C-alpha cells in the first residue's frame, strides 16, 4: 500500500493562513552578500518595525539598508514620489557611495501603484548609480521568495556573454601578439589555440542563489573536482562582478525558492537551465553534481565514495533521528529538500507544508524525493501548499510528531505542549549546502532532541494549564 501512495504525488492547498516572514527580510542576508550594495525598502513603519525586530542586533552594525518611510503625504500623492526618492538616494550616494541601490517595493507601493520600475531608469541616469527594482511584497510572496525577486531583477543587469568573450578574445589576441611578437607565426597560433582549449573546457556555468562566500566556494570546488568550471555566481560578492549571461550559458539553482530567477534566466537571458535536485544533504549534493556533470557529458569520479564517507561521519546523529517523525509547518520553501534529506536519514515525515511550490522548477527535486521515499519504503508525505496553521496544529495534536519544524510564532507554545520544535528560520541562515555542511543540518535538527533527552526524566514536558476542550 505504501508503494502505491508514493507513486503519485498528492498536493493539497489550504487557506494560506500561515505564519511566515515578510519577503523584505531578504535584505538582511543580501546586503551582507553583495558588499557594494545599498537596499532601500520603500514602505511604511510596519515594514521598518518588522526589519528592525526580525534582524535583531544586525541593525546596530551600520547596515547598508534603510527604509524610505512613506508618510501620509506620500500616500495621498501630495508629495512627488520621484523628487522624494531622488532626495533620499542622493543622500545615500553622499553617505555611502554604493555601486548599486536596490529598491524593495512593498505592499504599500503596490497598492498606491507607485511606478518604481518607471522611475528607476530616470533616476539612474540622473544619479549615475544603477538602481535595481525588486517587488518583494507580502501580497505576492513569502519569506525567501524575496531573494528570488531581487535576483530576478539583477539577472537583467548581468553583462551579455557573447560580447564579453569576443572582447576578451580581441584583447587576448593583441596581448599575445605583443608578447610573442618575436616568435614565429606558427607558434603564435599554437598558444592562442591552447588558450581557447582552456576556455572551451565546459560551456560557461553560472550558479544562482545567494550563499555565504565559504559555502559558494565549497560548492565551486566540489564541481572543480569533477573538472566542471563555474564561471560565475548570481549574485556575486560585488555588484560590479555580476556574471555574464547569454544563450551559451548554462545556469543551475542552488536553492528551491528561485523559480522566478530561473524563469528570467531562461526566457529573458536565453540561458539553459539545468534542472537538478538541490545540493542540500549529501544525497542532494551528489545528485546535483551528477546532474550538472551529465549535462556537460562528464563522467563523475569518486562521488559515490564521497557521499558514503559523509554519511559515515553523520552516524552519531543518524542514530538519534532514525525512526523519529517530523512535521514541517512550512514557511521558507526549503521544505521539500529538507524533508527529502531527513527521509533519507531515516526519519518519517508526516506533512510538508510549503508556502508555494513551483512544480516545474522543483521537478527534479520532487522526483528525487519520490525515489528516496521508494528506496526507504515509506509513503511520500502529503505536501500542503499555502497551509493553514490552525488546521496544522489540530493535525499535530493527533499525530504527535517527535519534531515540528516551525516558525517562531508557534515554537514556544508547541514546546509548552510537549512537542519538540526547531525554528525553521535557522535553516535559511545556517550553512546547509554541499557535502561539508550536511552535519550542520543534522546539528540543527537534533538539537531539540538532544536537549530534551537531557530533560526527559524531569517530568515536566507539558507546561500548560488545563485547557477548555474546544480550544487549541
Amino acid at each position, binding site marked *: 500500500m505504501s508503494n502505491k501512495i508514493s507513486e503519485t504525488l498528492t498536493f493539497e492547498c489550504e487557506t494560506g493562513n500561515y505564519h511566515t516572514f515578510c519577503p523584505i527580510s531578504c535584505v538582511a542576508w543580501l546586503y551582507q552578500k553583495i558588499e557594494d550594495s545599498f537596499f532601500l525598502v520603500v514602505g511604511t513603519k510596519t515594514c521598518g518595525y518588522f526589519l528592525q525586530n526580525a534582524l535583531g542586533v544586525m541593525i546596530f552594525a551600520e547596515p547598508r539598508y534603510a527604509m524610505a518611510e512613506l508618510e501620509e503625504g506620500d500616500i495621498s500623492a501630495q508629495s512627488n514620489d520621484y523628487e522624494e526618492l531622488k532626495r533620499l538616494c542622493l543622500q545615500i550616494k553622499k553617505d555611502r557611495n554604493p555601486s548599486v541601490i536596490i529598491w524593495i517595493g512593498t505592499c504599500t507601493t503596490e497598492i498606491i501603484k507607485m511606478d518604481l520600475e518607471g522611475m528607476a531608469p530616470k533616476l539612474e541616469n540622473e544619479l549615475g548609480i544603477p538602481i535595481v527594482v525588486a517587488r518583494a511584497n*507580502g501580497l505576492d510572496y513569502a519569506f525567501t521568495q524575496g531573494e528570488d525577486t531581487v535576483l530576478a531583477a539583477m539577472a537583467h543587469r548581468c553583462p551579455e556573454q557573447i560580447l564579453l568573450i569576443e572582447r576578451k578574445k580581441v584583447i587576448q589576441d593583441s596581448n599575445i601578439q605583443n608578447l610573442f611578437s618575436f616568435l614565429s607565426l606558427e607558434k603564435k597560433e599554437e598558444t592562442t589555440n591552447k588558450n581557447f582549449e582552456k576556455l572551451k573546457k565546459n560551456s560557461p556555468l553560472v550558479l544562482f542563489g545567494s550563499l555565504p562566500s565559504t559555502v559558494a566556494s565549497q560548492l565551486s*570546488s566540489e564541481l572543480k573536482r569533477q573538472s566542471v568550471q563555474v564561471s560565475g555566481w548570481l549574485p556575486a560578492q560585488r555588484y560590479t562582478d555580476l556574471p555574464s549571461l547569454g544563450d551559451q550559458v548554462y545556469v543551475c539553482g542552488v536553492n528551491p525558492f528561485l523559480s522566478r530567477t530561473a524563469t528570467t534566466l531562461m526566457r529573458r537571458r536565453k540561458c539553459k537551465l539545468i534542472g537538478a535536485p538541490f545540493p542540500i544533504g549529501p544525497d542532494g549534493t551528489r545528485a546535483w553534481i551528477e546532474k550538472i556533470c551529465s549535462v556537460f557529458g562528464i563522467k563523475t569520479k569518486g562521488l559515490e565514495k564521497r557521499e558514503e564517507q559523509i554519511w559515515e561521519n553523520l552516524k552519531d546523529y543518524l542514530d538519534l533521528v532514525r525512526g523519529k517523525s517530523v512535521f514541517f509547518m512550512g514557511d521558507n520553501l526549503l521544505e521539500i529538500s529538507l524533508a527529502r534529506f531527513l527521509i533519507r536519514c531515516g526519519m518519517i515525515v508526516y506533512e510538508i507544508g510549503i508556502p508555494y511550490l513551483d512544480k516545474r522548477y522543483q521537478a527534479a527535486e520532487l522526483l528525487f524525493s519520490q525515489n528516496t521515499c521508494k528506496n526507504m519504503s515509506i509513503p511520500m508525505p502529503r505536501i500542503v501548499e499555502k497551509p493553514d496553521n490552525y488546521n496544522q496544529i489540530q493535525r499535530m495534536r493527533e499525530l504527535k510528531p517527535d519534531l515540528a519544524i516551525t516558525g517562531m510564532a508557534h515554537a514556544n507554545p508547541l514546546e*509548552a505542549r510537549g512537542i519538540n520544535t526547531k525554528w525553521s528560520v535557522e535553516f535559511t541562515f545556517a550553512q546547509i549546502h554541499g557535502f561539508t555542511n550536511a552535519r550542520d543540518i543534522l546539528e540543527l535538527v537534533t538539537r531539540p532532541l538532544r536537549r530534551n533527552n537531557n530533560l526527559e526524566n524531569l517530568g515536566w514536558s507539558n507546561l500548560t494549564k488545563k485547557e477548555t476542550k474546544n480550544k487549541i
Partner: protein
Amino acid sequence: MKLAYWMYAGPAHIGTLRVASSFKNVHAIMHAPLGDDYFNVMRSMLERERDFTPVTASIVDRHVLARGSQEKVVDNITRKDKEERPDLIVLTPTCTSSILQEDLQNFVDRASITSNSDVILADVNHYRVNELQAADRTLEQVVRYYLEKARRQGTLDQSITKEPSANIIGIFTLGFHNQHDCRELKRLLQDSNIKVNKVIPEGGSVKDLQDLPKAWFNLVPYREIGLMTAIYLEKNFGMPYISITPMGIVDTAECIRQIEKHVNNLVSNKKFNYEPYIDQQTRFVSQAAWFSRSIDCQNLTGKKAVVFGDATHAASITRILAREMGIRVSCTGTYCKHDAEWFKEQVQGFCDEILVTDDHTKVGDMIARIEPSAIFGTQMERHIGKRLDIPCGVISSPVHIQNFPLGYRPFLGYEGTNQIADLVYNSFTLGMEDHLLEIFGGHDTKEVITKSLSTDTDLTWNHESQLELNKIPGFVRGKIKRNTEKFARQNNITNITVEIMYAAKEALSA
C-alpha cells in the same frame, strides 16, 4: 518620505494587538498581507509566551486588491468565533488596510450578527498615531464598549465597594517590566489596606469590565497607556484617578499621599494616615534612601548622565538621578513627541537640556557631544554606548529579550527603588575601580597571543586558504584554524589549501 533606519515606537496596529492580546479570551484579527503577523513572534519570543498568541491575519493578497475582501474578513471572524469562542474579536486595521479604505466597519457589523462573540473595529489611524497612542485608544475603546453595553442592558452596578478599592489600568503585554510592576503595585495597595478591584488589560476578562466603576479610584502607573481610559471613567462615572508614577522614593510617597487623599474623601469615620508607612518604607524597607547617603553614592556626585526613553520612564529616572542621587543629568529626552509638553514640565529644573526626538541618530550625536559617564536609555542607547565605550542601563522600551527577566525586577514601588539603585550604581564604573584606573593609567590591555602551547608551526597556509580563513567570522576563526592544523598534522600535510580546510571540517565536524 523619510530615510529611517530604526524607530523607537512601533506602528499603530502593534499597540492595538498588545492591548487585545493582554485581555483573556480576546482574539484580534488583522486585516493585513502575509508576514505582517510578526507580532506573534515578538510575543512568543520576548514574553516567552506558552500559549498561542490570539492574533490571526485575514490575509490581504492580490485577489483582495483586485476584488476587495468581500466575504473573506467576515468568514475569518465567524470561523475564529467557532474555533476559539472568544468573548471579543477585535478587527485590527494595518497600514495596508488604511490605504485600501475598505469599509471594515461594515464587515464588523455583518460578522457580529452571526457570531456569538462581540466584534469591534479598532479605531486607530496608522498614519496618525504610533504604537503607544494606539494602545491607549484601544483600551479606552474596549472599556467604553463594555460599559455602554452594560448600561444598555441594565446590568451596570454603579455602587462602590464597601472597603476602599482601586483599579490598576495600563499593565499589558510586551510592556517594560510590566508584570513585575503590577505585582509591586498590588503589594503597595495591599500594604495600604486597599483592595485591588480590577487590573486591566493584562489577564482581565472583558466580561468583568462592567465592574470597573465599583472601585474608589483608578491608578494609572504609566503615562503612555491608560490615561484615556481613566479620563473616560472620570467623566462618565466620576471616578478620580492618580497618574503619578510611583517610581523613585519621592514619587512613590507622593503617589501614596494622593491615594490617602482620595480614600479619605470617601470615608467618613476613620481617616487613613499613610505617613508612618511612608516613613517606615523609605527609611528602612527600601534601601535606596540609605544608599544615596552611603559613601558609595558619594562617588557618583556630579557625574554626568544622559537619560532617554518613553515619557514615563525618562522623566522618573531623570528625577531620581538628580533629586535622589545627586547625579548631574546633562540631557534628558523622550521619543514620545506627542507628549512633549508634559515631559518638559516634568523634568524642568532636573536637567541641563531636553531633547524630544524620535530620530536615534540625533540621540547618538547628543551622547557623543556630551560624553556622559553613564547612559540610561533604551536598547538603542545601549548600543550607542557600546560604540562610544560608555556604560548604559536600560530603563525603557524598546527592549530585547534580556529585558524580560525571569527574576523579580519591578521599577515601581519600594522594591523598584532598590532595583533602580542597583541599576544606576552598576552602570557607572564602580567608584574604587575608577580611582585605581586613574592612578594606574587604565586597564591591562595585554592580549592573549596564542592558545597553543608551542608557537613554532611547520604548517604553511597558501594564499587561497588564508583568504578563505579570513572570510570566516572572527569569533570562530581561531577554532577553525586550530582544527585545520590539527587535521593537517594528523595526515602529515604541510601545505594547507582550501580543500584541506573543507576536508578538516568534514573530518572533525567542526
